């Protein structure tokens, strides 16, 4: 195992490194998201079929990506916690859940609002929408399970297993538009093909996706730092840190 892997296991080291990384990621997230949104809302050309309602894509696609990426992050962190008994990994997994849930809600809500003018309905029980709703319920289940178990390590183990079982839903979401006949349009970005839309439409979308990854990093680090402080509150290094706060 490389040295950084062991360092990651130290809550104190994680607290310090996240403190250094936070400003950079915050600035990147702010500029990418604000810039991408302005580009997408005001400068990208309207869709030839959907007109301007297509601009909802600039919020819908990044949030839908994030809801899934955060789930994968949570499951991997949970697995690392299970295998190597790494406490920081347990904390990361725990902190992922509320962020992922909020972005899953946003993806579903923007999808519903986009669906109304495009399909004529707020909601259809279509494969993509239903599997996304299941993702949201998985997040809720993981959060509920985590708060229901008093012992931190037992809670982390149980939620990690639930998260890993729920991982099966991710490829279902991803391929739902190919496996079933759905109303939902196919993926915007594919690894093997060029996007179906012109660059002046997909470049701002790509900027926003990167911006949302930075945003996730920021909110995750903020939550992780709180979690580290809370769990390590009896240690001497946190005590010293608190004394500095008091001045």
């Amino acid at each position, binding site marked *: 195992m490389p040295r950084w892997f062991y360092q990651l296991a130290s809550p104190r080291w994680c607290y310090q490194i996240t403190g250094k990384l936070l400003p950079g990621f915050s600035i990147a997230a702010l500029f990418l998201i604000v810039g991408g949104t302005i580009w997408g809302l005001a400068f990208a050309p309207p869709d030839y079929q959907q007109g301007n309602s297509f*601009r909802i894509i600039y919020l819908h696609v990044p949030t839908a990506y994030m809801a899934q990426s955060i789930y994968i992050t949570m499951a991997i962190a949970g697995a690392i916690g299970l295998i190597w008994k790494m406490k920081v990994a347990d904390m990361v997994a725990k902190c992922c859940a509320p962020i992922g849930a909020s972005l899953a809600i946003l993806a579903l809500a923007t999808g519903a609002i986009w669906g109304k003018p495009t399909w004529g309905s707020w909601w259809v029980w279509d494969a993509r929408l239903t599997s996304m709703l299941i993702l949201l319920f998985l997040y809720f289940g993981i959060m509920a399970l985590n708060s229901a178990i008093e012992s931190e390590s037992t809670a982390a183990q149980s939620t990690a297993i639930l998260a890993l079982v729920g991982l099966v839903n991710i490829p279902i979401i991803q391929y739902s538009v190919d496996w079933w006949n759905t109303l939902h349009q196919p993926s915007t970005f594919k690894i093997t093909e060029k996007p179906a839309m012109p660059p002046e439409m997909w470049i701002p979308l790509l900027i926003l996706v990167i911006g949302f990854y930075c945003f996730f990093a920021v909110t995750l680090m903020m939550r992780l*730092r709180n979690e580290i*402080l809370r769990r390590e509150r009896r240690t001497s290094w946190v005590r010293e840190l608190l004394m500095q706060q008091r001045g």
Partner: protein
Amino acid sequence: MSFDSFSDFLAMGGHAFYVWSCFALGLVVMLGNVIAPMLERKKLISEQLRRIRREEAKS
């Protein structure tokens, strides 16, 4: 610029309600995600400082 005027931009070709409600909701969720851990941190630090003060008073 894909619109002729600012009022055109606000109207979103008749889809103003859908587009702007999405982005307003997005702003609320994003701000919430930043503000919640900030408040949590404040609360946590003041709680721990109070605990330290209590322990110091006892000893």
